[in-house]
Protein backbone atom coordinates (compact mmCIF):
# COMPACT_ATOMS: atom_id res chain seq x y z
CA UNK A 1 0.00 0.00 0.00
CA UNK A 2 2.89 2.34 0.79
CA UNK A 3 6.00 2.60 -1.37
CA UNK A 4 9.25 1.96 0.43
CA UNK A 5 11.58 4.70 -0.74
CA UNK A 6 15.20 4.49 0.43
CA UNK A 7 16.49 8.04 0.77
CA UNK A 8 19.77 9.88 1.02
CA UNK A 9 19.03 13.56 1.49
CA UNK A 10 22.62 14.75 1.77
CA UNK A 11 24.95 14.14 -1.17
CA UNK A 12 27.60 16.55 -2.47
CA UNK A 13 28.65 17.06 -6.08
CA UNK A 14 32.03 18.11 -7.46
CA UNK A 15 30.96 21.72 -6.84
CA UNK A 16 31.85 21.28 -3.18
CA UNK A 17 35.61 21.81 -3.02
CA UNK A 18 35.98 19.00 -0.49
CA UNK A 19 34.13 16.50 -2.75
CA UNK A 20 35.80 14.17 -5.21
CA UNK A 21 35.87 15.09 -8.92
CA UNK A 22 34.01 11.84 -9.62
CA UNK A 23 30.84 13.35 -8.05
CA UNK A 24 29.27 14.30 -11.39
CA UNK A 25 25.54 13.85 -12.07
CA UNK A 26 25.78 10.67 -14.16
CA UNK A 27 28.01 8.92 -11.62
CA UNK A 28 25.87 9.98 -8.65
CA UNK A 29 22.64 8.84 -10.34
CA UNK A 30 24.13 5.54 -11.51
CA UNK A 31 25.42 4.86 -8.02
CA UNK A 32 22.04 5.75 -6.48
CA UNK A 33 20.37 3.47 -9.04
CA UNK A 34 22.66 0.57 -8.12
CA UNK A 35 21.96 1.12 -4.42
CA UNK A 36 18.20 1.33 -4.94
CA UNK A 37 18.05 4.90 -3.64
CA UNK A 38 14.76 6.52 -4.66
CA UNK A 39 15.15 9.95 -3.07
CA UNK A 40 18.37 11.89 -3.49
CA UNK A 41 18.97 15.29 -1.88
CA UNK A 42 21.71 17.30 -3.59
CA UNK A 43 23.25 19.66 -1.06
CA UNK A 44 26.50 21.42 -1.91
CA UNK A 45 28.01 23.97 0.45
CA UNK A 46 26.25 27.34 0.11
CA UNK A 47 25.39 26.74 -3.57
CA UNK A 48 22.96 24.95 -5.87
CA UNK A 49 25.17 25.35 -8.95
CA UNK A 50 24.95 21.71 -10.11
CA UNK A 51 21.32 21.07 -9.19
CA UNK A 52 19.92 21.83 -12.62
CA UNK A 53 22.17 19.24 -14.31
CA UNK A 54 21.15 16.69 -11.66
CA UNK A 55 17.44 17.36 -12.21
CA UNK A 56 17.78 17.16 -15.96
CA UNK A 57 19.49 13.79 -15.93
CA UNK A 58 17.22 12.42 -13.17
CA UNK A 59 14.37 12.39 -15.71
CA UNK A 60 15.99 9.24 -17.17
CA UNK A 61 15.91 7.45 -13.80
CA UNK A 62 13.24 6.32 -11.36
CA UNK A 63 14.79 8.59 -8.73
CA UNK A 64 13.44 11.79 -7.20
CA UNK A 65 16.21 14.40 -6.98
CA UNK A 66 15.50 17.03 -4.33
CA UNK A 67 17.15 20.40 -5.01
CA UNK A 68 19.03 21.61 -1.98
CA UNK A 69 21.84 23.60 -0.41
CA UNK A 70 23.86 22.86 2.72
CA UNK A 71 23.96 26.35 4.18
CA UNK A 72 26.61 27.32 6.75
CA UNK A 73 25.09 29.95 9.05
CA UNK A 74 27.00 32.70 10.84
CA UNK A 75 27.20 30.45 13.91
CA UNK A 76 28.97 27.83 11.71
CA UNK A 77 25.94 25.54 11.81
CA UNK A 78 25.35 23.35 8.75
CA UNK A 79 21.71 23.25 7.62
CA UNK A 80 20.21 21.10 4.87
CA UNK A 81 17.71 23.23 2.96
CA UNK A 82 15.57 21.21 0.55
CA UNK A 83 12.92 22.29 -1.95
CA UNK A 84 10.34 21.00 -4.36
CA UNK A 85 11.66 22.82 -7.42
CA UNK A 86 14.65 24.57 -8.93
CA UNK A 87 13.20 28.10 -8.69
CA UNK A 88 12.92 27.87 -4.91
CA UNK A 89 16.46 26.60 -4.46
CA UNK A 90 17.80 29.30 -6.78
CA UNK A 91 16.00 31.92 -4.73
CA UNK A 92 17.67 30.61 -1.59
CA UNK A 93 20.98 30.57 -3.46
CA UNK A 94 20.57 34.25 -4.27
CA UNK A 95 19.86 34.97 -0.60
CA UNK A 96 22.93 32.96 0.43
CA UNK A 97 25.22 34.53 -2.20
CA UNK A 98 24.17 37.96 -0.93
CA UNK A 99 25.43 36.98 2.51
CA UNK A 100 28.71 35.28 1.52
CA UNK A 101 31.91 37.16 2.31
CA UNK A 102 33.67 38.41 -0.81
CA UNK A 103 36.54 35.94 -0.62
CA UNK A 104 37.69 33.96 -3.67
CA UNK A 105 38.28 30.24 -3.44
CA UNK A 106 41.87 29.07 -3.70
CA UNK A 107 41.62 25.63 -5.33
CA UNK A 108 45.20 24.84 -4.33
CA UNK A 109 44.22 24.79 -0.64
CA UNK A 110 40.52 23.99 -0.66
CA UNK A 111 39.92 22.09 -3.90
CA UNK A 112 38.08 22.85 -7.13
CA UNK A 113 34.46 24.00 -7.30
CA UNK A 114 33.41 22.54 -10.65
CA UNK A 115 30.19 23.50 -12.37
CA UNK A 116 29.35 20.63 -14.71
CA UNK A 117 26.71 19.34 -17.11
CA UNK A 118 24.90 16.00 -16.72
CA UNK A 119 27.84 14.00 -18.07
CA UNK A 120 30.47 15.85 -16.07
CA UNK A 121 31.77 18.15 -18.78
CA UNK A 122 33.17 21.22 -17.06
CA UNK A 123 31.08 24.33 -17.68
CA UNK A 124 33.08 26.55 -15.37
CA UNK A 125 34.39 26.94 -11.87
CA UNK A 126 32.61 28.81 -9.08
CA UNK A 127 35.11 31.34 -7.77
CA UNK A 128 33.28 32.47 -4.61
CA UNK A 129 34.63 30.64 -1.59
CA UNK A 130 31.73 28.31 -0.75
CA UNK A 131 33.02 26.56 2.35
CA UNK A 132 32.62 29.42 4.77
CA UNK A 133 29.93 30.97 6.95
CA UNK A 134 27.39 33.37 5.51
CA UNK A 135 26.43 36.39 7.62
CA UNK A 136 22.90 35.13 8.42
CA UNK A 137 21.79 33.38 11.58
CA UNK A 138 20.24 29.92 11.88
CA UNK A 139 16.91 31.61 12.63
CA UNK A 140 17.12 33.86 9.56
CA UNK A 141 17.96 30.93 7.27
CA UNK A 142 15.12 28.83 8.74
CA UNK A 143 12.64 31.68 8.23
CA UNK A 144 13.73 32.13 4.60
CA UNK A 145 13.53 28.39 3.84
CA UNK A 146 10.02 28.20 5.26
CA UNK A 147 8.97 31.35 3.40
CA UNK A 148 10.03 29.47 0.23
CA UNK A 149 8.04 26.38 1.36
CA UNK A 150 11.19 24.33 1.86
CA UNK A 151 12.39 21.84 4.45
CA UNK A 152 15.17 22.69 6.88
CA UNK A 153 17.16 20.01 8.66
CA UNK A 154 20.18 20.69 10.91
CA UNK A 155 22.92 18.43 9.53
CA UNK A 156 25.01 15.80 11.34
CA UNK A 157 23.89 16.91 14.81
CA UNK A 158 26.09 14.25 16.45
CA UNK A 159 29.27 15.93 15.22
CA UNK A 160 31.25 18.32 17.43
CA UNK A 161 31.90 20.88 14.70
CA UNK A 162 29.59 22.50 12.16
CA UNK A 163 26.54 21.04 13.90
CA UNK A 164 23.78 22.87 15.73
CA UNK A 165 24.57 20.95 18.90
CA UNK A 166 28.33 21.54 18.68
CA UNK A 167 28.05 25.24 17.86
CA UNK A 168 24.97 26.22 19.87
CA UNK A 169 24.89 23.56 22.60
CA UNK A 170 21.23 22.66 22.04
CA UNK A 171 18.34 23.35 19.68
CA UNK A 172 16.48 26.49 20.75
CA UNK A 173 12.76 25.85 21.40
CA UNK A 174 11.60 28.66 19.15
CA UNK A 175 13.56 27.42 16.10
CA UNK A 176 11.25 25.86 13.55
CA UNK A 177 12.91 22.83 11.91
CA UNK A 178 11.43 19.87 10.03
CA UNK A 179 13.76 17.08 11.16
CA UNK A 180 17.31 16.48 12.35
CA UNK A 181 20.03 14.50 10.60
CA UNK A 182 22.65 12.32 12.26
CA UNK A 183 25.80 11.25 10.48
CA UNK A 184 27.16 7.85 9.49
CA UNK A 185 29.86 8.31 12.18
CA UNK A 186 27.39 7.06 14.81
CA UNK A 187 25.16 3.98 14.71
CA UNK A 188 21.39 4.53 14.89
CA UNK A 189 21.41 2.61 18.18
CA UNK A 190 24.11 4.83 19.72
CA UNK A 191 22.45 7.97 18.43
CA UNK A 192 19.16 7.01 20.03
CA UNK A 193 20.79 6.28 23.38
CA UNK A 194 23.23 9.25 23.41
CA UNK A 195 20.87 11.93 22.10
CA UNK A 196 17.60 11.05 23.86
CA UNK A 197 16.65 14.72 24.19
CA UNK A 198 16.53 15.03 20.37
CA UNK A 199 14.22 12.10 19.69
CA UNK A 200 11.10 14.28 19.66
CA UNK A 201 12.24 15.58 16.25
CA UNK A 202 11.70 13.51 13.09
CA UNK A 203 15.01 11.73 12.38
CA UNK A 204 16.92 11.09 9.19
CA UNK A 205 20.45 9.85 8.63
CA UNK A 206 22.40 10.51 5.44
CA UNK A 207 25.67 9.63 3.80
CA UNK A 208 26.94 13.25 3.47
CA UNK A 209 28.82 11.59 0.60
CA UNK A 210 31.76 13.45 -0.87
CA UNK A 211 32.72 10.38 -2.96
CA UNK A 212 30.76 7.61 -4.71
CA UNK A 213 31.92 5.00 -2.23
CA UNK A 214 30.46 6.95 0.68
CA UNK A 215 26.99 6.78 -0.89
CA UNK A 216 26.81 3.11 0.15
CA UNK A 217 25.57 4.27 3.59
CA UNK A 218 21.83 3.93 3.16
CA UNK A 219 19.63 3.76 6.26
CA UNK A 220 16.74 6.19 5.81
CA UNK A 221 13.54 4.90 4.26
CA UNK A 222 10.36 6.87 3.53
CA UNK A 223 6.96 5.17 3.33
CA UNK A 224 4.99 7.17 0.77
CA UNK A 225 1.94 6.89 -1.48
CA UNK A 226 3.96 8.28 -4.37
CA UNK A 227 7.42 9.65 -4.99
CA UNK A 228 7.02 13.40 -4.43
CA UNK A 229 8.29 16.25 -2.30
CA UNK A 230 4.83 16.79 -0.77
CA UNK A 231 4.71 13.15 0.34
CA UNK A 232 8.16 13.50 1.96
CA UNK A 233 6.89 16.50 3.90
CA UNK A 234 3.85 14.46 5.02
CA UNK A 235 6.13 11.61 6.11
CA UNK A 236 8.29 13.97 8.20
CA UNK A 237 5.11 15.16 9.90
CA UNK A 238 3.79 11.62 10.28
CA UNK A 239 0.59 12.42 8.38
CA UNK A 240 -1.92 9.87 7.05
CA UNK A 241 0.30 6.82 7.42
CA UNK A 242 3.36 8.31 5.73
CA UNK A 243 6.48 7.65 7.75
CA UNK A 244 10.21 7.98 7.84
CA UNK A 245 12.11 5.00 9.21
CA UNK A 246 15.72 4.48 10.23
CA UNK A 247 17.11 1.02 9.52
CA UNK A 248 19.62 -0.49 11.93
Amino acid at each position, binding site marked *: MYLECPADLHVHTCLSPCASDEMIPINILNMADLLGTKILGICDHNSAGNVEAMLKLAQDYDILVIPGIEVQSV*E*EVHLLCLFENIDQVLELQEYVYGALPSIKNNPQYFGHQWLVDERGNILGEEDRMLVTSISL*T*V*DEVAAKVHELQGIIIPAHVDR*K*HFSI*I*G*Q*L*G*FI*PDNLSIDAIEFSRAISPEDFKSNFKHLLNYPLITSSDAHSLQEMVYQKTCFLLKELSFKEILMALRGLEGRKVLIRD
Partner: protein
Amino acid sequence: MKLSEVQNRLGLKLVTKITNLDRDVAGGYASDLLSWVMAHAKENDIWITIQSHQNIVAVASLLNLAAIIVAEGANIDDSTIQKAEQENIPIYSSDKSIYELCGILYNLLPGE
Protein backbone atom coordinates in the same frame (compact mmCIF):
# COMPACT_ATOMS: atom_id res chain seq x y z
CA MET B 1 37.21 41.48 41.12
CA LYS B 2 33.84 43.19 40.74
CA LEU B 3 32.17 42.99 37.34
CA SER B 4 31.86 46.79 37.18
CA GLU B 5 35.63 47.10 37.59
CA VAL B 6 36.27 44.53 34.84
CA GLN B 7 33.89 46.58 32.67
CA ASN B 8 35.91 49.77 33.25
CA ARG B 9 39.35 48.21 32.88
CA LEU B 10 38.45 46.45 29.60
CA GLY B 11 36.50 49.43 28.26
CA LEU B 12 33.38 47.35 27.67
CA LYS B 13 30.05 48.61 26.41
CA LEU B 14 27.07 47.24 28.33
CA VAL B 15 24.26 46.25 25.95
CA THR B 16 21.78 44.80 28.44
CA LYS B 17 19.87 47.28 30.57
CA ILE B 18 18.34 45.62 33.57
CA THR B 19 20.96 43.14 34.65
CA ASN B 20 22.78 42.84 37.96
CA LEU B 21 26.35 44.15 37.75
CA ASP B 22 27.06 43.76 41.45
CA ARG B 23 28.80 40.43 41.30
CA ASP B 24 32.30 39.01 41.42
CA VAL B 25 34.30 37.71 38.47
CA ALA B 26 36.40 34.71 39.44
CA GLY B 27 38.05 33.98 36.10
CA GLY B 28 37.77 34.18 32.33
CA TYR B 29 36.85 31.73 29.62
CA ALA B 30 37.04 32.02 25.81
CA SER B 31 35.47 29.75 23.17
CA ASP B 32 32.84 29.94 20.45
CA LEU B 33 31.69 26.34 20.54
CA LEU B 34 28.79 26.40 22.97
CA SER B 35 28.86 22.66 23.59
CA TRP B 36 32.50 23.07 24.63
CA VAL B 37 31.74 26.04 26.84
CA MET B 38 28.97 24.08 28.57
CA ALA B 39 31.46 21.36 29.40
CA HIS B 40 34.41 23.52 30.47
CA ALA B 41 33.56 27.05 31.68
CA LYS B 42 33.26 27.55 35.44
CA GLU B 43 30.83 29.41 37.68
CA ASN B 44 31.52 33.17 37.96
CA ASP B 45 33.74 33.19 34.87
CA ILE B 46 33.35 36.04 32.43
CA TRP B 47 32.96 34.45 28.98
CA ILE B 48 34.48 35.97 25.85
CA THR B 49 33.07 34.87 22.49
CA ILE B 50 32.08 36.07 19.02
CA GLN B 51 28.99 33.82 19.12
CA SER B 52 25.90 35.95 19.70
CA HIS B 53 23.01 33.55 19.11
CA GLN B 54 20.48 33.67 21.97
CA ASN B 55 21.67 30.26 23.14
CA ILE B 56 24.71 32.01 24.71
CA VAL B 57 22.33 33.32 27.38
CA ALA B 58 21.08 29.85 28.23
CA VAL B 59 24.64 28.55 28.51
CA ALA B 60 25.68 31.45 30.77
CA SER B 61 22.58 30.98 32.89
CA LEU B 62 23.08 27.23 33.17
CA LEU B 63 26.67 27.66 34.41
CA ASN B 64 25.98 30.83 36.43
CA LEU B 65 28.61 32.79 34.54
CA ALA B 66 29.28 36.36 35.66
CA ALA B 67 28.74 37.92 32.23
CA ILE B 68 29.30 37.51 28.48
CA ILE B 69 31.57 39.68 26.35
CA VAL B 70 30.74 39.57 22.64
CA ALA B 71 34.08 40.52 21.10
CA GLU B 72 35.27 42.00 17.81
CA GLY B 73 32.17 44.14 17.39
CA ALA B 74 30.10 41.08 16.39
CA ASN B 75 26.45 41.98 15.90
CA ILE B 76 24.13 41.00 18.78
CA ASP B 77 20.50 40.19 17.97
CA ASP B 78 17.75 41.97 19.90
CA SER B 79 16.34 38.55 20.81
CA THR B 80 19.64 37.70 22.54
CA ILE B 81 19.60 40.96 24.50
CA GLN B 82 15.97 40.48 25.55
CA LYS B 83 16.64 36.95 26.70
CA ALA B 84 19.69 38.11 28.67
CA GLU B 85 17.62 40.75 30.44
CA GLN B 86 15.02 38.12 31.35
CA GLU B 87 17.71 35.77 32.65
CA ASN B 88 19.71 38.53 34.36
CA ILE B 89 22.90 37.83 32.40
CA PRO B 90 24.89 40.99 31.58
CA ILE B 91 26.14 41.14 27.99
CA TYR B 92 28.94 43.46 26.96
CA SER B 93 30.11 44.40 23.50
CA SER B 94 33.73 45.16 22.64
CA ASP B 95 35.54 46.10 19.44
CA LYS B 96 38.69 44.48 20.80
CA SER B 97 39.70 41.03 19.58
CA ILE B 98 39.27 37.95 21.76
CA TYR B 99 43.07 37.78 21.95
CA GLU B 100 43.39 41.33 23.28
CA LEU B 101 40.56 40.92 25.79
CA CYS B 102 41.99 37.68 27.11
CA GLY B 103 45.43 39.25 27.42
CA ILE B 104 44.18 42.20 29.44
CA LEU B 105 41.86 40.09 31.58
CA TYR B 106 44.52 37.52 32.33
CA ASN B 107 46.71 40.22 33.82
CA LEU B 108 43.84 41.71 35.81
CA LEU B 109 42.63 38.61 37.58
CA PRO B 110 44.70 36.88 40.25
CA GLY B 111 45.91 33.44 39.14
CA GLU B 112 44.40 30.33 40.69
